[in-house]
Protein backbone atom coordinates (compact mmCIF):
# COMPACT_ATOMS: atom_id res chain seq x y z
CA UNK A 1 0.00 0.00 0.00
CA UNK A 2 2.94 2.35 0.72
CA UNK A 3 4.14 1.88 -2.86
CA UNK A 4 0.69 2.75 -4.19
CA UNK A 5 0.47 5.87 -2.06
CA UNK A 6 3.97 6.89 -3.11
CA UNK A 7 2.98 6.53 -6.77
CA UNK A 8 -0.29 8.46 -6.29
CA UNK A 9 1.40 11.28 -4.38
CA UNK A 10 4.20 11.43 -6.94
CA UNK A 11 1.66 11.84 -9.75
CA UNK A 12 -0.24 14.51 -7.82
CA UNK A 13 2.95 16.50 -7.38
CA UNK A 14 3.91 16.03 -11.03
CA UNK A 15 0.54 17.47 -12.04
CA UNK A 16 0.99 20.36 -9.58
CA UNK A 17 4.35 21.20 -11.09
CA UNK A 18 2.63 21.62 -14.48
CA UNK A 19 0.62 24.46 -13.01
CA UNK A 20 2.96 26.73 -11.09
CA UNK A 21 0.57 29.68 -11.34
CA UNK A 22 -2.26 27.77 -9.71
CA UNK A 23 0.00 26.83 -6.79
CA UNK A 24 0.62 30.52 -6.15
CA UNK A 25 -3.10 31.29 -6.45
CA UNK A 26 -4.11 28.59 -3.98
CA UNK A 27 -1.45 29.78 -1.61
CA UNK A 28 -2.61 33.39 -1.86
CA UNK A 29 -6.14 32.21 -1.17
CA UNK A 30 -4.98 30.27 1.88
CA UNK A 31 -3.15 33.32 3.25
CA UNK A 32 -5.62 36.06 2.32
CA UNK A 33 -8.63 34.97 4.35
CA UNK A 34 -6.86 34.74 7.74
CA UNK A 35 -4.84 37.87 6.88
CA UNK A 36 -8.00 39.88 6.31
CA UNK A 37 -9.60 38.53 9.47
CA UNK A 38 -6.46 39.37 11.40
CA UNK A 39 -6.43 42.90 9.95
CA UNK A 40 -9.98 43.51 11.10
CA UNK A 41 -9.45 42.19 14.63
CA UNK A 42 -6.11 44.04 14.81
CA UNK A 43 -7.96 47.30 14.19
CA UNK A 44 -10.77 46.47 16.61
CA UNK A 45 -8.43 45.42 19.42
CA UNK A 46 -6.37 48.59 19.23
CA UNK A 47 -4.14 48.89 22.28
CA UNK A 48 -6.56 47.05 24.51
CA UNK A 49 -8.16 43.64 24.05
CA UNK A 50 -11.40 42.03 22.86
CA UNK A 51 -12.78 39.18 24.94
CA UNK A 52 -9.34 38.63 26.41
CA UNK A 53 -7.59 38.69 22.99
CA UNK A 54 -4.93 41.38 22.51
CA UNK A 55 -3.32 42.13 19.15
CA UNK A 56 -0.54 39.60 19.69
CA UNK A 57 -3.11 36.91 20.59
CA UNK A 58 -5.03 37.58 17.38
CA UNK A 59 -1.83 37.40 15.39
CA UNK A 60 -0.92 34.01 16.88
CA UNK A 61 -4.47 32.76 16.43
CA UNK A 62 -4.75 33.63 12.75
CA UNK A 63 -1.27 32.36 11.92
CA UNK A 64 -2.30 29.08 13.48
CA UNK A 65 -5.60 29.15 11.52
CA UNK A 66 -3.66 29.73 8.32
CA UNK A 67 -1.47 26.70 8.90
CA UNK A 68 -3.98 24.31 10.38
CA UNK A 69 -6.71 25.16 7.88
CA UNK A 70 -4.34 24.21 5.06
CA UNK A 71 -3.43 21.02 6.90
CA UNK A 72 -7.03 19.96 7.39
CA UNK A 73 -8.96 21.34 4.41
CA UNK A 74 -10.39 18.81 1.92
CA UNK A 75 -11.54 19.47 -1.63
CA UNK A 76 -12.82 16.00 -2.29
CA UNK A 77 -16.48 16.86 -2.75
CA UNK A 78 -15.59 18.82 -5.88
CA UNK A 79 -13.56 15.95 -7.30
CA UNK A 80 -16.16 13.34 -6.46
CA UNK A 81 -18.97 15.38 -7.90
CA UNK A 82 -17.08 15.48 -11.20
CA UNK A 83 -16.07 11.81 -11.04
CA UNK A 84 -19.66 10.76 -10.53
CA UNK A 85 -21.39 13.09 -12.96
CA UNK A 86 -18.86 12.74 -15.79
CA UNK A 87 -18.34 9.01 -15.35
CA UNK A 88 -14.69 9.40 -14.35
CA UNK A 89 -15.48 7.13 -11.43
CA UNK A 90 -15.82 4.20 -13.85
CA UNK A 91 -12.18 3.39 -14.37
CA UNK A 92 -11.46 4.10 -10.72
CA UNK A 93 -14.02 1.46 -9.78
CA UNK A 94 -12.47 -1.24 -11.94
CA UNK A 95 -9.01 -0.74 -10.43
CA UNK A 96 -8.14 -2.94 -7.46
CA UNK A 97 -7.81 0.13 -5.24
CA UNK A 98 -10.69 1.89 -3.53
CA UNK A 99 -11.11 5.41 -5.01
CA UNK A 100 -10.96 6.86 -1.47
CA UNK A 101 -7.26 5.94 -1.35
CA UNK A 102 -6.58 8.10 -4.37
CA UNK A 103 -8.44 10.94 -2.65
CA UNK A 104 -6.45 10.48 0.56
CA UNK A 105 -3.18 10.49 -1.39
CA UNK A 106 -4.26 13.69 -3.17
CA UNK A 107 -4.93 15.23 0.23
CA UNK A 108 -1.52 14.28 1.56
CA UNK A 109 0.15 15.68 -1.56
CA UNK A 110 -1.80 18.93 -1.39
CA UNK A 111 -1.29 19.43 2.31
CA UNK A 112 2.40 18.67 2.28
CA UNK A 113 2.88 21.19 -0.51
CA UNK A 114 0.82 24.14 0.79
CA UNK A 115 1.47 23.67 4.49
CA UNK A 116 5.22 23.49 4.02
CA UNK A 117 5.18 26.84 2.23
CA UNK A 118 2.96 28.37 4.90
CA UNK A 119 5.27 27.02 7.58
CA UNK A 120 8.18 28.81 5.92
CA UNK A 121 6.11 32.01 5.77
CA UNK A 122 5.38 31.63 9.46
CA UNK A 123 9.00 30.98 10.41
CA UNK A 124 10.08 34.08 8.51
CA UNK A 125 7.35 36.12 10.20
CA UNK A 126 8.26 34.72 13.62
CA UNK A 127 11.90 35.65 13.14
CA UNK A 128 10.94 39.27 12.67
CA UNK A 129 7.85 39.47 14.86
CA UNK A 130 7.93 37.98 18.35
CA UNK A 131 4.11 38.12 18.66
CA UNK A 132 3.58 35.13 16.36
CA UNK A 133 6.23 32.96 18.02
CA UNK A 134 4.90 29.89 19.78
CA UNK A 135 6.29 28.30 22.92
CA UNK A 136 8.56 25.38 22.08
CA UNK A 137 6.64 22.83 24.11
CA UNK A 138 7.05 19.35 22.54
CA UNK A 139 4.06 17.96 24.43
CA UNK A 140 1.75 20.66 23.08
CA UNK A 141 3.09 20.22 19.54
CA UNK A 142 2.57 16.46 19.75
CA UNK A 143 -1.02 16.89 20.99
CA UNK A 144 -1.67 19.44 18.27
CA UNK A 145 -0.35 17.00 15.69
CA UNK A 146 -2.86 14.39 16.90
CA UNK A 147 -5.69 16.94 16.86
CA UNK A 148 -4.72 18.09 13.35
CA UNK A 149 -4.68 14.49 12.12
CA UNK A 150 -8.14 13.87 13.57
CA UNK A 151 -9.47 17.12 12.12
CA UNK A 152 -7.96 16.35 8.70
CA UNK A 153 -9.48 12.86 8.71
CA UNK A 154 -12.88 14.22 9.73
CA UNK A 155 -12.88 17.01 7.15
CA UNK A 156 -11.86 14.45 4.54
CA UNK A 157 -14.87 12.27 5.33
CA UNK A 158 -17.19 15.31 5.47
CA UNK A 159 -16.03 16.40 2.04
CA UNK A 160 -15.97 12.90 0.53
CA UNK A 161 -19.41 12.04 1.90
CA UNK A 162 -20.89 15.31 0.68
CA UNK A 163 -19.36 14.61 -2.73
CA UNK A 164 -21.04 11.21 -2.72
CA UNK A 165 -24.39 13.00 -2.62
CA UNK A 166 -23.78 13.48 -6.35
CA UNK A 167 -25.11 9.93 -6.69
CA UNK A 168 -28.52 11.39 -5.83
CA UNK A 169 -28.41 15.10 -6.57
CA UNK A 170 -26.70 17.41 -9.00
CA UNK A 171 -26.24 19.98 -6.23
CA UNK A 172 -23.67 18.20 -4.09
CA UNK A 173 -21.09 20.98 -4.39
CA UNK A 174 -23.73 23.57 -3.42
CA UNK A 175 -24.27 21.65 -0.19
CA UNK A 176 -20.51 21.70 0.39
CA UNK A 177 -20.43 25.46 -0.28
CA UNK A 178 -23.14 25.91 2.30
CA UNK A 179 -21.13 23.87 4.79
CA UNK A 180 -18.04 25.95 4.04
CA UNK A 181 -20.03 29.14 4.59
CA UNK A 182 -21.33 27.98 7.96
CA UNK A 183 -17.88 26.78 9.00
CA UNK A 184 -16.46 30.23 8.27
CA UNK A 185 -18.11 31.26 11.53
CA UNK A 186 -18.59 28.04 13.45
CA UNK A 187 -15.16 26.53 12.86
CA UNK A 188 -13.34 29.67 13.90
CA UNK A 189 -12.02 30.85 10.56
CA UNK A 190 -13.29 34.40 10.93
CA UNK A 191 -12.98 34.81 14.72
CA UNK A 192 -11.95 32.75 17.75
CA UNK A 193 -14.99 30.86 19.02
CA UNK A 194 -14.52 32.57 22.40
CA UNK A 195 -15.62 35.83 20.76
CA UNK A 196 -18.83 34.44 19.26
CA UNK A 197 -22.16 34.90 21.05
CA UNK A 198 -22.39 32.06 23.62
CA UNK A 199 -25.36 30.46 21.83
CA UNK A 200 -23.49 30.30 18.53
CA UNK A 201 -20.32 29.04 20.19
CA UNK A 202 -22.26 26.29 21.92
CA UNK A 203 -23.73 25.16 18.57
CA UNK A 204 -20.18 25.02 17.20
CA UNK A 205 -19.16 22.91 20.17
CA UNK A 206 -22.20 20.65 20.07
CA UNK A 207 -21.71 19.91 16.36
CA UNK A 208 -18.47 19.00 14.59
CA UNK A 209 -17.41 22.55 13.66
CA UNK A 210 -15.15 23.21 16.64
CA UNK A 211 -13.39 19.88 16.09
CA UNK A 212 -12.70 20.82 12.45
CA UNK A 213 -10.39 23.73 13.12
CA UNK A 214 -10.93 25.83 16.25
CA UNK A 215 -9.94 23.09 18.70
CA UNK A 216 -6.54 22.23 17.14
CA UNK A 217 -5.85 25.95 16.69
CA UNK A 218 -6.64 26.69 20.34
CA UNK A 219 -4.54 23.72 21.35
CA UNK A 220 -1.55 25.05 19.47
CA UNK A 221 -1.86 28.63 20.72
CA UNK A 222 -2.46 27.50 24.29
CA UNK A 223 -6.05 28.77 24.52
CA UNK A 224 -7.09 25.26 25.49
CA UNK A 225 -5.26 24.07 28.56
CA UNK A 226 -5.75 21.62 31.37
CA UNK A 227 -5.95 17.86 30.87
CA UNK A 228 -9.71 17.89 31.19
CA UNK A 229 -10.35 20.36 28.37
CA UNK A 230 -7.82 18.68 26.12
CA UNK A 231 -9.24 15.19 26.67
CA UNK A 232 -12.78 16.46 26.08
CA UNK A 233 -11.69 18.19 22.88
CA UNK A 234 -9.93 15.10 21.54
CA UNK A 235 -12.87 12.88 22.53
CA UNK A 236 -15.25 15.14 20.61
CA UNK A 237 -12.98 14.92 17.58
CA UNK A 238 -12.88 11.13 17.76
CA UNK A 239 -16.66 10.98 18.16
CA UNK A 240 -17.34 13.20 15.15
CA UNK A 241 -14.73 11.44 13.08
CA UNK A 242 -16.53 8.18 13.85
CA UNK A 243 -19.90 9.68 12.91
CA UNK A 244 -18.65 11.03 9.59
CA UNK A 245 -16.87 7.79 8.83
CA UNK A 246 -20.14 5.98 9.39
CA UNK A 247 -21.96 8.46 7.16
CA UNK A 248 -19.34 7.88 4.48
CA UNK A 249 -19.73 4.10 4.70
CA UNK A 250 -23.50 4.32 4.37
CA UNK A 251 -23.38 6.86 1.54
CA UNK A 252 -20.77 4.83 -0.34
CA UNK A 253 -22.51 1.46 -0.14
CA UNK A 254 -25.94 2.92 -1.02
CA UNK A 255 -24.60 5.26 -3.67
CA UNK A 256 -22.57 2.67 -5.48
CA UNK A 257 -25.68 0.54 -5.84
CA UNK A 258 -27.55 3.50 -7.19
CA UNK A 259 -24.74 4.55 -9.49
CA UNK A 260 -25.87 4.96 -13.06
CA UNK A 261 -22.32 4.62 -14.43
CA UNK A 262 -22.84 7.52 -16.80
CA UNK A 263 -21.71 7.32 -20.39
CA UNK A 264 -23.83 4.95 -22.42
Amino acid at each position, binding site marked *: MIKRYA*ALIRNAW*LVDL*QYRASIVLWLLWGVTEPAIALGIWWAIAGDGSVGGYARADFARYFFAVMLINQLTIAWDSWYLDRWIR*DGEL*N*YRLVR*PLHPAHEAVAENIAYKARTASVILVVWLLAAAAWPAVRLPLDPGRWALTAVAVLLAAAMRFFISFTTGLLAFWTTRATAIMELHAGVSLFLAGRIAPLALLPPAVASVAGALWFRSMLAFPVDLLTGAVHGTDAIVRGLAAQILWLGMWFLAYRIAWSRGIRKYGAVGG
Partner: protein
Amino acid sequence: MPSIVTADGLSKTFQVKVRDPGLRGAVRALFRPRYRDVLAVRDVTFRIEPGEIVAFLGPNGAGKTTTLKMLAGLLYPTSGRVEAAGFVPWTGGPPFKRRIALVLGNRQQLVWDLPPEETFLLNRAIYDIPDVDYRARLAELVALLELGDVLQKPVRQLSLGERMKCELVASLLHHPPLLFLDEPTLGLDVTAQEAIRRFLIEYRDRHGATVLLTSHYMQDVTALASRVLMINRGRLLYDGALDVLVGRIARTKRIELVLGGDGGDGHRVTAEALAAFGDLKSFHFPNAVLEVRREDAPATSARLLAAFPVADLSIEDPPIEEVIRLAFARGVEEDQ
Protein backbone atom coordinates in the same frame (compact mmCIF):
# COMPACT_ATOMS: atom_id res chain seq x y z
CA MET B 1 -12.94 -25.53 -19.86
CA PRO B 2 -15.58 -23.58 -17.93
CA SER B 3 -17.08 -20.44 -19.48
CA ILE B 4 -15.26 -17.22 -18.62
CA VAL B 5 -18.49 -15.21 -18.67
CA THR B 6 -21.94 -16.45 -17.75
CA ALA B 7 -24.98 -14.21 -17.76
CA ASP B 8 -28.22 -15.77 -16.66
CA GLY B 9 -31.52 -13.93 -16.91
CA LEU B 10 -29.70 -10.63 -16.54
CA SER B 11 -31.96 -7.56 -16.23
CA LYS B 12 -31.43 -3.92 -15.38
CA THR B 13 -34.16 -1.39 -14.78
CA PHE B 14 -33.37 2.30 -14.37
CA GLN B 15 -35.72 4.70 -12.71
CA VAL B 16 -35.98 7.87 -14.72
CA LYS B 17 -37.62 11.03 -13.49
CA VAL B 18 -40.35 12.24 -15.81
CA ARG B 19 -41.80 15.72 -15.90
CA ASP B 20 -44.21 17.58 -18.06
CA PRO B 21 -42.83 20.39 -20.17
CA GLY B 22 -42.91 24.00 -19.04
CA LEU B 23 -42.74 25.80 -15.71
CA ARG B 24 -45.84 24.11 -14.34
CA GLY B 25 -44.36 20.71 -15.08
CA ALA B 26 -41.10 21.69 -13.41
CA VAL B 27 -42.86 22.89 -10.26
CA ARG B 28 -45.05 19.81 -10.11
CA ALA B 29 -41.99 17.59 -10.50
CA LEU B 30 -40.40 19.43 -7.60
CA PHE B 31 -43.19 18.54 -5.20
CA ARG B 32 -44.45 15.29 -6.62
CA PRO B 33 -41.69 13.68 -8.63
CA ARG B 34 -42.89 10.90 -10.89
CA TYR B 35 -40.67 8.08 -12.03
CA ARG B 36 -40.81 5.79 -14.99
CA ASP B 37 -39.09 2.44 -15.18
CA VAL B 38 -36.80 2.02 -18.15
CA LEU B 39 -36.00 -1.60 -18.90
CA ALA B 40 -32.45 -1.20 -20.16
CA VAL B 41 -31.65 -4.92 -20.22
CA ARG B 42 -34.27 -7.64 -20.08
CA ASP B 43 -33.64 -11.25 -19.27
CA VAL B 44 -30.39 -11.64 -21.19
CA THR B 45 -28.66 -15.03 -21.07
CA PHE B 46 -25.40 -16.06 -22.70
CA ARG B 47 -22.05 -17.72 -22.11
CA ILE B 48 -18.65 -16.77 -23.39
CA GLU B 49 -15.76 -19.19 -23.67
CA PRO B 50 -12.12 -18.27 -22.98
CA GLY B 51 -10.29 -16.82 -25.99
CA GLU B 52 -13.43 -15.69 -27.81
CA ILE B 53 -13.81 -12.22 -29.28
CA VAL B 54 -17.48 -11.32 -29.01
CA ALA B 55 -19.15 -8.13 -30.20
CA PHE B 56 -22.30 -6.56 -28.89
CA LEU B 57 -24.33 -5.16 -31.76
CA GLY B 58 -27.22 -2.79 -31.44
CA PRO B 59 -28.41 0.77 -31.98
CA ASN B 60 -27.79 3.52 -29.42
CA GLY B 61 -29.61 2.83 -26.18
CA ALA B 62 -30.04 -0.85 -26.98
CA GLY B 63 -28.48 -1.96 -23.70
CA LYS B 64 -25.00 -2.92 -24.93
CA THR B 65 -23.01 -0.69 -22.61
CA THR B 66 -25.34 -1.40 -19.70
CA THR B 67 -24.70 -5.12 -20.14
CA LEU B 68 -20.95 -4.55 -20.40
CA LYS B 69 -20.99 -2.45 -17.24
CA MET B 70 -22.86 -5.13 -15.34
CA LEU B 71 -20.28 -7.70 -16.43
CA ALA B 72 -17.47 -5.38 -15.28
CA GLY B 73 -19.14 -4.84 -11.91
CA LEU B 74 -19.91 -1.14 -12.41
CA LEU B 75 -23.66 -1.62 -12.36
CA TYR B 76 -25.79 -3.74 -10.09
CA PRO B 77 -28.25 -5.86 -12.04
CA THR B 78 -31.89 -5.57 -11.02
CA SER B 79 -32.17 -9.32 -11.34
CA GLY B 80 -30.32 -12.26 -12.78
CA ARG B 81 -26.96 -13.85 -12.23
CA VAL B 82 -23.54 -12.96 -13.62
CA GLU B 83 -20.18 -14.62 -13.31
CA ALA B 84 -17.10 -13.20 -14.97
CA ALA B 85 -13.52 -14.48 -14.73
CA GLY B 86 -14.64 -16.75 -11.91
CA PHE B 87 -16.26 -14.05 -9.79
CA VAL B 88 -19.59 -12.39 -9.20
CA PRO B 89 -18.45 -8.96 -10.43
CA TRP B 90 -19.82 -6.61 -7.74
CA THR B 91 -18.62 -8.75 -4.87
CA GLY B 92 -15.38 -9.91 -6.48
CA GLY B 93 -13.29 -7.07 -5.08
CA PRO B 94 -9.62 -6.62 -5.98
CA PRO B 95 -9.05 -10.28 -7.05
CA PHE B 96 -11.78 -9.85 -9.69
CA LYS B 97 -10.54 -6.41 -10.73
CA ARG B 98 -7.05 -7.77 -11.35
CA ARG B 99 -8.52 -10.21 -13.87
CA ILE B 100 -10.39 -7.70 -16.00
CA ALA B 101 -9.77 -4.55 -18.00
CA LEU B 102 -12.43 -2.03 -18.94
CA VAL B 103 -11.66 0.42 -21.71
CA LEU B 104 -14.23 3.11 -22.36
CA GLY B 105 -13.81 4.89 -25.68
CA ASN B 106 -15.19 8.14 -24.35
CA ARG B 107 -13.56 8.15 -20.90
CA GLN B 108 -9.91 7.94 -20.22
CA GLN B 109 -7.77 7.05 -17.27
CA LEU B 110 -4.60 8.66 -18.61
CA VAL B 111 -3.57 11.66 -16.52
CA TRP B 112 -4.21 14.54 -18.90
CA ASP B 113 -1.29 16.76 -17.94
CA LEU B 114 1.41 14.10 -17.71
CA PRO B 115 3.09 11.83 -20.23
CA PRO B 116 1.31 8.45 -20.54
CA GLU B 117 4.27 6.71 -18.94
CA GLU B 118 3.32 8.29 -15.59
CA THR B 119 -0.08 6.62 -15.75
CA PHE B 120 1.61 3.32 -16.61
CA LEU B 121 3.91 3.68 -13.58
CA LEU B 122 0.89 4.44 -11.41
CA ASN B 123 -0.84 1.30 -12.62
CA ARG B 124 2.34 -0.69 -12.01
CA ALA B 125 2.03 0.35 -8.36
CA ILE B 126 -1.75 -0.11 -8.14
CA TYR B 127 -1.66 -3.61 -9.65
CA ASP B 128 1.59 -4.61 -7.86
CA ILE B 129 3.27 -5.53 -11.12
CA PRO B 130 6.86 -6.74 -10.56
CA ASP B 131 9.42 -4.51 -12.25
CA VAL B 132 10.68 -7.21 -14.63
CA ASP B 133 7.15 -8.02 -15.82
CA TYR B 134 6.30 -4.35 -16.12
CA ARG B 135 9.24 -3.65 -18.41
CA ALA B 136 8.67 -6.74 -20.55
CA ARG B 137 4.93 -6.07 -20.94
CA LEU B 138 5.40 -2.39 -21.66
CA ALA B 139 7.99 -3.19 -24.32
CA GLU B 140 5.65 -5.74 -25.91
CA LEU B 141 2.61 -3.45 -25.91
CA VAL B 142 4.60 -0.49 -27.20
CA ALA B 143 5.96 -2.61 -30.04
CA LEU B 144 2.58 -4.12 -30.95
CA LEU B 145 0.88 -0.72 -30.95
CA GLU B 146 3.83 1.04 -32.60
CA LEU B 147 3.90 3.69 -29.89
CA GLY B 148 7.63 4.46 -29.95
CA ASP B 149 8.12 8.11 -29.20
CA VAL B 150 4.83 9.20 -27.65
CA LEU B 151 5.44 7.88 -24.13
CA GLN B 152 7.21 11.02 -22.98
CA LYS B 153 4.80 13.56 -24.49
CA PRO B 154 2.05 14.97 -22.26
CA VAL B 155 -1.25 13.22 -22.96
CA ARG B 156 -2.92 16.49 -23.92
CA GLN B 157 -0.57 16.74 -26.92
CA LEU B 158 -1.35 13.27 -28.26
CA SER B 159 -3.73 12.52 -31.11
CA LEU B 160 -6.96 10.66 -30.35
CA GLY B 161 -5.51 7.49 -31.86
CA GLU B 162 -2.34 7.72 -29.81
CA ARG B 163 -4.40 8.30 -26.68
CA MET B 164 -6.53 5.23 -27.30
CA LYS B 165 -3.42 3.13 -27.87
CA CYS B 166 -1.93 4.40 -24.60
CA GLU B 167 -5.26 3.76 -22.91
CA LEU B 168 -5.00 0.13 -24.04
CA VAL B 169 -1.44 -0.11 -22.71
CA ALA B 170 -2.53 1.28 -19.32
CA SER B 171 -5.41 -1.20 -19.19
CA LEU B 172 -3.40 -4.27 -20.19
CA LEU B 173 -0.19 -3.92 -18.16
CA HIS B 174 -1.61 -6.23 -15.51
CA HIS B 175 -2.36 -8.88 -18.17
CA PRO B 176 -6.06 -9.38 -17.53
CA PRO B 177 -7.55 -12.51 -19.12
CA LEU B 178 -10.88 -10.73 -19.70
CA LEU B 179 -11.22 -7.45 -21.62
CA PHE B 180 -14.30 -5.25 -21.84
CA LEU B 181 -14.01 -2.64 -24.56
CA ASP B 182 -16.73 -0.05 -25.01
CA GLU B 183 -16.39 1.65 -28.38
CA PRO B 184 -12.59 1.27 -28.51
CA THR B 185 -12.32 2.86 -31.96
CA LEU B 186 -14.77 5.72 -31.43
CA GLY B 187 -13.77 8.78 -33.43
CA LEU B 188 -10.51 7.29 -34.71
CA ASP B 189 -9.34 7.58 -38.31
CA VAL B 190 -9.25 4.48 -40.48
CA THR B 191 -5.52 3.82 -39.97
CA ALA B 192 -5.79 4.01 -36.20
CA GLN B 193 -8.93 1.83 -36.23
CA GLU B 194 -7.08 -0.83 -38.21
CA ALA B 195 -4.06 -0.64 -35.91
CA ILE B 196 -6.30 -1.23 -32.88
CA ARG B 197 -8.04 -4.17 -34.56
CA ARG B 198 -4.74 -5.77 -35.57
CA PHE B 199 -3.50 -5.29 -32.04
CA LEU B 200 -6.54 -6.87 -30.41
CA ILE B 201 -6.32 -9.99 -32.55
CA GLU B 202 -2.57 -10.30 -31.99
CA TYR B 203 -2.99 -9.77 -28.25
CA ARG B 204 -5.72 -12.42 -28.04
CA ASP B 205 -3.62 -14.89 -30.05
CA ARG B 206 -0.55 -14.35 -27.88
CA HIS B 207 -2.18 -14.33 -24.47
CA GLY B 208 -5.45 -16.18 -24.97
CA ALA B 209 -7.43 -13.23 -23.62
CA THR B 210 -11.18 -13.06 -24.00
CA VAL B 211 -12.53 -9.84 -25.52
CA LEU B 212 -16.03 -8.42 -25.29
CA LEU B 213 -16.58 -5.25 -27.22
CA THR B 214 -19.24 -2.86 -28.37
CA SER B 215 -18.78 -0.80 -31.47
CA HIS B 216 -20.65 1.30 -33.95
CA TYR B 217 -18.18 0.45 -36.66
CA MET B 218 -19.20 -2.61 -38.60
CA GLN B 219 -15.59 -3.14 -39.67
CA ASP B 220 -14.67 -3.67 -36.02
CA VAL B 221 -17.21 -6.42 -35.82
CA THR B 222 -16.42 -8.15 -39.11
CA ALA B 223 -12.66 -7.97 -38.54
CA LEU B 224 -12.64 -8.99 -34.90
CA ALA B 225 -15.62 -10.92 -33.73
CA SER B 226 -16.19 -14.58 -34.38
CA ARG B 227 -19.50 -14.18 -32.64
CA VAL B 228 -22.02 -11.41 -32.19
CA LEU B 229 -24.65 -10.74 -29.55
CA MET B 230 -27.35 -8.62 -31.07
CA ILE B 231 -29.26 -6.52 -28.59
CA ASN B 232 -32.20 -4.24 -29.17
CA ARG B 233 -34.38 -2.56 -26.57
CA GLY B 234 -32.63 -4.57 -23.90
CA ARG B 235 -33.42 -7.95 -25.41
CA LEU B 236 -30.94 -10.41 -26.83
CA LEU B 237 -32.14 -10.97 -30.39
CA TYR B 238 -29.35 -13.13 -31.71
CA ASP B 239 -26.32 -14.95 -30.39
CA GLY B 240 -24.04 -16.66 -32.86
CA ALA B 241 -21.67 -16.32 -35.78
CA LEU B 242 -21.98 -13.25 -37.93
CA ASP B 243 -22.16 -15.16 -41.22
CA VAL B 244 -24.96 -17.35 -39.90
CA LEU B 245 -26.87 -14.19 -39.02
CA VAL B 246 -26.27 -12.87 -42.52
CA GLY B 247 -27.49 -16.13 -44.03
CA ARG B 248 -30.61 -15.96 -41.92
CA ILE B 249 -31.46 -12.36 -42.65
CA ALA B 250 -30.24 -11.82 -46.17
CA ARG B 251 -32.56 -13.51 -48.62
CA THR B 252 -30.38 -12.39 -51.47
CA LYS B 253 -26.82 -12.61 -52.69
CA ARG B 254 -24.97 -10.15 -54.83
CA ILE B 255 -23.33 -11.27 -58.04
CA GLU B 256 -20.62 -8.84 -59.02
CA LEU B 257 -19.56 -9.05 -62.64
CA VAL B 258 -16.68 -7.64 -64.57
CA LEU B 259 -17.61 -8.03 -68.22
CA GLY B 260 -15.09 -8.88 -70.87
CA GLY B 261 -14.95 -7.60 -74.46
CA ASP B 262 -14.79 -3.96 -75.39
CA GLY B 263 -18.41 -3.14 -74.87
CA GLY B 264 -18.55 -2.24 -78.54
CA ASP B 265 -21.32 -3.09 -80.94
CA GLY B 266 -20.20 -6.66 -81.47
CA HIS B 267 -20.79 -7.76 -77.89
CA ARG B 268 -23.13 -5.16 -76.59
CA VAL B 269 -24.31 -6.12 -73.15
CA THR B 270 -27.36 -4.08 -72.30
CA ALA B 271 -28.91 -3.31 -68.96
CA GLU B 272 -32.09 -4.96 -70.20
CA ALA B 273 -30.23 -8.15 -70.97
CA LEU B 274 -28.67 -8.25 -67.50
CA ALA B 275 -31.91 -7.38 -65.76
CA ALA B 276 -33.40 -10.61 -67.08
CA PHE B 277 -31.10 -12.50 -64.68
CA GLY B 278 -32.00 -10.69 -61.47
CA ASP B 279 -32.41 -7.33 -59.80
CA LEU B 280 -29.81 -5.10 -61.46
CA LYS B 281 -28.37 -2.88 -58.72
CA SER B 282 -25.82 -1.02 -60.82
CA PHE B 283 -24.30 -1.16 -64.30
CA HIS B 284 -21.34 0.88 -65.46
CA PHE B 285 -19.54 -1.06 -68.14
CA PRO B 286 -17.60 -3.24 -67.46
CA ASN B 287 -18.95 -3.51 -63.89
CA ALA B 288 -22.39 -4.79 -62.99
CA VAL B 289 -24.03 -5.82 -59.76
CA LEU B 290 -27.02 -8.14 -59.69
CA GLU B 291 -29.03 -9.22 -56.68
CA VAL B 292 -30.59 -12.67 -56.84
CA ARG B 293 -32.33 -15.03 -54.45
CA ARG B 294 -29.85 -16.77 -52.23
CA GLU B 295 -30.62 -20.26 -53.44
CA ASP B 296 -30.53 -19.16 -57.10
CA ALA B 297 -27.03 -17.67 -56.93
CA PRO B 298 -25.01 -20.66 -58.24
CA ALA B 299 -27.36 -21.43 -61.13
CA THR B 300 -27.70 -17.80 -62.16
CA SER B 301 -23.93 -17.41 -62.09
CA ALA B 302 -23.55 -20.35 -64.45
CA ARG B 303 -26.13 -18.88 -66.83
CA LEU B 304 -24.42 -15.49 -66.74
CA LEU B 305 -21.10 -17.08 -67.60
CA ALA B 306 -22.69 -18.81 -70.54
CA ALA B 307 -24.55 -15.76 -71.81
CA PHE B 308 -21.92 -13.00 -71.59
CA PRO B 309 -18.18 -12.59 -71.97
CA VAL B 310 -17.31 -12.45 -68.28
CA ALA B 311 -13.81 -11.49 -67.10
CA ASP B 312 -14.58 -11.91 -63.42
CA LEU B 313 -17.49 -12.98 -61.27
CA SER B 314 -17.94 -13.09 -57.53
CA ILE B 315 -20.83 -13.93 -55.23
CA GLU B 316 -21.10 -11.79 -52.13
CA ASP B 317 -23.42 -11.28 -49.22
CA PRO B 318 -25.09 -7.89 -49.15
CA PRO B 319 -23.14 -5.23 -47.19
CA ILE B 320 -23.21 -6.09 -43.50
CA GLU B 321 -24.68 -2.72 -42.49
CA GLU B 322 -27.63 -3.51 -44.74
CA VAL B 323 -28.10 -6.90 -43.11
CA ILE B 324 -27.95 -5.47 -39.62
CA ARG B 325 -30.40 -2.74 -40.53
CA LEU B 326 -32.77 -5.38 -41.87
CA ALA B 327 -32.26 -7.56 -38.82
CA PHE B 328 -33.25 -4.76 -36.47
CA ALA B 329 -36.12 -3.71 -38.68
CA ARG B 330 -37.63 -7.18 -39.03
CA GLY B 331 -36.42 -8.96 -35.95
CA VAL B 332 -34.00 -11.81 -36.37
CA GLU B 333 -36.36 -14.70 -35.93
CA GLU B 334 -38.36 -14.08 -39.09
CA ASP B 335 -36.23 -16.11 -41.44
CA GLN B 336 -35.48 -19.02 -39.20
